[in-house]
């Protein structure tokens, strides 16, 4: 039955090559912790992706309650945290998951760096990886403001002052992010849009490029 369904789709879409890239490939010995335990360092990339999936899923549930408005943002987070069933867990997953993602990205970057895996022919994938790192830091920075509590507001003020100190274009960057003369309603709306729409879109695009390149080039060989 399943084979028939597969054939029916394959006949029309030629999915065998896609299926091959997705699932039907082998894992070389030197990256498999089942053979060499020290190969667990090769798991950091996969765990990073896992935590990003956690971030996307928990974030989707958070948006069901969150209100991106300075009057209600904090109240909605407080309500979610203290009144909604399992709200503490969902928010906890997103809050701590952000930290875990940063840690995992850091470890994954170090693994790639110290095994020299960015060398030819994988330079482009390294570039995409570094860009992913910065997108994730950007997600961390914009997400920090959204609960609209004291530390969020004052940390963002400092962050925007640092952005404003960029020579020549600093003022423009600040205006673009801040939206008005002060960190206020416009800023919250912009950070929300950047955190929920702009950066995740960039993130998913870069992730796709990251994975397509990895499938095309394979994992770098043993040292």
């Amino acid at each position, binding site marked *: 039955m399943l084979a028939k369904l597969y054939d029916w789709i394959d006949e029309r879409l030629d999915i065998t090559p896609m299926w091959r890239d997705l699932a039907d490939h082998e894992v070389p010995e030197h990256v498999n912790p089942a053979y060499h335990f020290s190969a667990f360092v090769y798991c950091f990339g996969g765990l990073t992706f896992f935590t990003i999936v956690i971030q996307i899923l928990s974030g989707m549930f958070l948006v069901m309650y969150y209100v991106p408005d300075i009057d209600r943002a904090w109240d909605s987070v407080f309500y979610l945290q203290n009144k909604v069933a399992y709200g503490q867990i969902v928010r906890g997953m997103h809050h701590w998951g952000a930290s875990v993602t940063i840690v995992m990205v850091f470890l994954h970057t170090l693994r790639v760096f110290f095994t020299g895996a960015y060398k030819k022919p994988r330079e482009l994938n390294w570039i995409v990886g570094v860009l992913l790192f910065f997108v994730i830091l950007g997600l961390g920075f914009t997400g920090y403001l959204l609960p609209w*509590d004291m530390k969020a507001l004052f940390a963002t003020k400092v962050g925007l002052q640092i952005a404003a100190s*960029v020579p020549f274009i600093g003022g423009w960057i600040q205006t673009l992010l801040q939206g008005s003369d002060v960190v206020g309603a416009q800023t919250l709306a912009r950070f929300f849009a950047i955190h929920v729409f702009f950066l995740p879109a960039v993130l998913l695009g870069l992730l796709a490029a990251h994975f397509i390149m990895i499938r095309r080039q394979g994992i770098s060989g043993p040292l």
Partner: protein
Amino acid sequence: MHRGKGMKFVGDSRVPKNSGFVPPKDYSEYPGKTEAFLPNFLLKEWMVGAVFLVGFLVLTMAEPSPLEAEADPTKSGYIPLPDWYFLFLYQLLKYPYAAGHYKVIGAIIIPGLALVGLLLAPWLDRGPERRPLKRPVATGLMLLAIVSVFYLTWESTVSHDWKQAAEQGKIVKKVSIDKNSKGYKIYSSQSCVNCHGQNLEGQVGPSFIGKNIPASLVEQVAVKGIPPKMPANAFKGSKKDLKTLAEFIAKSSKK
């Protein structure tokens, strides 16, 4: 140039020297070496993932994510602190050679050099060697960067006043205070109100709400102060007023 010609990938790459698709290697060519991704490897990966997820969920339940009081831009005494992964940058901007007039060094030049260096790593480190010990410059620079980031992060946590940080962000219950009472009139006519807030909720100084402070302690502190922030002789007036004030604050602090 013929597309794809001359491409040679290392490792388990399946993109060949010559163009054209080569089907995946047959597993029987490498007995006991490679493993099928699906289902063999993925099942193990899922088990590790499940353990990871359980540990992670335990963390989220054991340690509720923090939420401070609602943002109030008027509380200018607040000492800001970014999330932990930006602490090293925050600390860097505290050093005199990277702050003030030289802010551009700490905010742009040093992080910018690190960023560009990271992006261009494959072109800065062009040798064929991949072992860390065989490319000492790249390894050394990265280790230096890691040590600097850890050191700066640690420095910023040591120099931060965590006690005040916990105090300044506390969610304070909104309580109604009888502003027509004699005690409140003394409170607002003295300097108390400037630091401890219109509703005793705390501004530069700490909040009184929910602290359950005894009246005798209020009397004592209002006169003697608590170094370094609470000045001595903050209260100026008669003994009777001091007593009324102390009782008012003690009563309000029980709310």
